[in-house]
């Protein structure tokens, strides 16, 4: 078949098991975890692709892919239902008799070389499925092409004292990378990799094949591919990104990122300047009803909710019922959860489809300066009448 050429194909690594999100990813792949009232984490990189003019996206998934598959469907909500390109969920060795897990991030791309070749792209954009940010990849690709780079890695400045937690790119004044250090004890700079890479496809393909042949390789981008390309004298450039970016791979960072949506001038504005909307699968739900006795302050409430209680500094997702005399403070309530009368929830994440029976108390308040511990109730759980879920407890 003769396929039209694509300038850039995006490959989204959605395979992470998300073990640090505990019960929230028990039956859900991390990218399918709800975020911000009506979104899933994967909506952010997917919408960035669409807003950057990238219309061919492969989603690499292996853990609990069912829900993710269902959510992505034919890609219509993102305008990715195309006859050539569009979005495709790529499980390990689809269509092959040999069934094998993706051994690592690089192996996941290796197993899909055929998918990428179909589009004969100049560049391949590698993305992670667990970051919340808004970014115009087109600008990064332009930078990549202008520098005739083999790899361009998006970096952001992190506080120097935190640099040892990240993959750090040490650069020359022209932006070229001379050294890559994974979680260095003594960091030389604070350019932290965001896990967003643009590769020249011809170069990436060669190294993927070589890497696959190396039995000692962990088949990982950060550990194997990037050092190998760097050490063989190729051109690597760092692309500075300024703006909100958050890895939501832990309970506390997921909670924090939700809280950072709040306020009249929030740290991350879901609406942005209106030019790069975040698309999501929308369900046919009526507008929300807000009762007289409710008191909603500094919060986000999505459609399809009925709110009779008080919601303060919280995010309430689509299709929830918040009964009367409920108090929500610093809480994240995921979609389709029912909270019965008199429940008090503070500093907590409540998963999708839960029922919190009357009088239950989940989480607690924290004094200024005290370390917050987020209580978590997993998807589809029922918390019984007057049950207590302690601060930081995970159910």
């Amino acid at each position, binding site marked *: 078949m003769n396929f039209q050429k694509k300038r850039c194909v995006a490959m989204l690594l959605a395979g992470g098991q998300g073990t640090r999100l505990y019960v929230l990813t028990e039956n859900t792949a991390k990218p399918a975890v709800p975020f*911000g*009232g*009506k979104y899933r984490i994967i909506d952010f990189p997917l919408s960035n692709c669409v807003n950057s003019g990238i219309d061919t996206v492969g989603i690499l998934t292996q853990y609990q892919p069912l829900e993710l598959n269902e959510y992505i469907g034919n890609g219509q*909500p993102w305008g990715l239902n195309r006859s050539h390109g569009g979005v495709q969920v790529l499980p390990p060795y689809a269509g092959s008799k040999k069934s094998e897990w993706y051994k690592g991030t690089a192996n996941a791309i290796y197993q899909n070389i055929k998918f990428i070749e179909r589009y004969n792209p100049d560049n391949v954009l590698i993305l992670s499925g667990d970051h919340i940010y808004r970014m115009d990849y087109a600008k990064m690709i332009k930078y990549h092409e202008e520098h005739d780079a083999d790899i361009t890695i998006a970096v952001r400045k992190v506080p120097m004292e935190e640099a040892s937690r990240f993959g750090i790119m040490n650069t020359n004044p022209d932006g070229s990378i001379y050294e890559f250090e994974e979680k260095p004890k003594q960091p030389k700079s604070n350019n932290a990799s965001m896990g967003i890479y643009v590769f020249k496809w011809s170069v990436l393909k060669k190294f993927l094949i070589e890497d696959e042949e190396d039995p000692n390789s962990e088949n990982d981008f950060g550990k194997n591919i990037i050092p190998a390309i760097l050490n063989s004298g190729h051109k690597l450039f760092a692309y500075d990104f300024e703006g909100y970016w958050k890895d939501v791979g832990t309970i506390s960072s997921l909670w924090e990122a939700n809280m950072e949506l*709040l306020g*009249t001038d929030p740290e991350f504005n*879901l*609406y942005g300047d209106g030019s790069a*909307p*975040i*698309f*999501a699968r*929308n369900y*046919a739900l*009526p*507008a*929300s*009803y*807000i*009762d*007289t006795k*409710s008191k*909603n*302050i*500094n*919060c*986000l*409430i*999505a*459609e399809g909710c009925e709110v009779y209680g008080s*919601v303060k500094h919280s*995010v*309430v*997702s*689509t299709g929830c019922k918040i009964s009367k005399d409920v108090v929500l403070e610093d809480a994240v309530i995921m979609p389709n959860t029912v909270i019965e009368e008199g429940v008090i929830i503070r500093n907590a994440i409540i998963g999708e489809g839960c029922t919190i029976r009357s009088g239950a108390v989940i989480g607690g308040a924290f004094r200024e300066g005290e370390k917050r511990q987020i209580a978590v109730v997993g998807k589809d759980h029922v918390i019984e009448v007057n049950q207590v879920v302690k601060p930081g407890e995970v159910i």
Partner: protein
Amino acid sequence: MKNVMGLVFANIYDSSLGQLTNKRTQASLPYGGRYRQIDFTLSNMANAGIRHIGIVTQYNFQSLMNHIGSGEEWDLELEENGLEFITPYSMGVSNNFRGKLEAIAAANSGYLAKGKEEYIILADAAVICAIKLEDVVNAHIASGKDVTVVVKSGIANGKKQLDLAVRLDENGEISDMAVDYAAPEDYLASMGMFIMRKDLLVKSAEECVSHNRYRFEREFILQDWADGLLSVGAYQFDEVALFNESTEEYFRNNLAIIDKNIRHSLFREGLTIYTKVRDQVPVYYGENSEVDDCIVADGCVLLGSAFNSVFFRGVKLSTGASVKNCVVMANCEIGIGAQLEYCILDKDVKINAGVKLIGTLEHPVILNRGDVV
């Protein structure tokens, strides 16, 4: 219900809705925070498995077509001719249709003939309800009548002019029928929904039009029933049905969904109301906001106070502004300290800081699309 097709009349009450239908059909009037009136009609049909729907529209139909598109929200794009707009010009009629019968006769050779369905449901977008049309069709077939009209009690009050009103005897048979009549309370009001065999409808419409009879209720249903040529049954609908046939009714009925019982009847399990999807962010309620008894759609930013009002998508309510008993359509902006009571703000209205507008329930202040006050 593969054996039933739908025919929706989009312009029926345009003239009695004043400035609200200046630039749109009655069917595309916004309703309930995120819907257009026709969403209810189309969703009722789609939920009953109806896969072919014709929409008769005469003028101002740009916004209606934009809203419905290919009908994909109702899965109507899946089949050939799933959805078709029937306009006078596309049917070779050089003037406006003189009534529903002329539209039906004109559509006969085209859209109506394409479908293989045996039955047809006629509806307009003036009555907001969630109705299980399978029940209506089954009752119609079981009754053996030529036509079944869906009727609602409690609407006739001796004042409201009804298109078609019927009175039933103790056996549930129609004992009296009247058109354009302010019927007393013991009459039932037609919801503008009729079911019959398609071949009978087409034959009757053609015959009526050839005798210059164009008006469906008066010159076909009533006349042929009175002449003993047509048997007509009534199907009583027990759930909520809101008649939006005038500006005042439209205003009241928009606020009506704040009532839990009405809301829960219109949005019932298994009768999902579909509409065009828009990617709006969840609603933000500000630090000093006070929102009581309101319906709020996505994309709103509410920083002021609001009471007993309906907010469509993307409304900005500034700090210190107060909105009471209002219908605020999409993308309106209400400035700091503005005070609104009993108003209908059409889309994209901008109210400047400190402006005060007070209407009444009977005569709400109506601002046109894009007005700046």
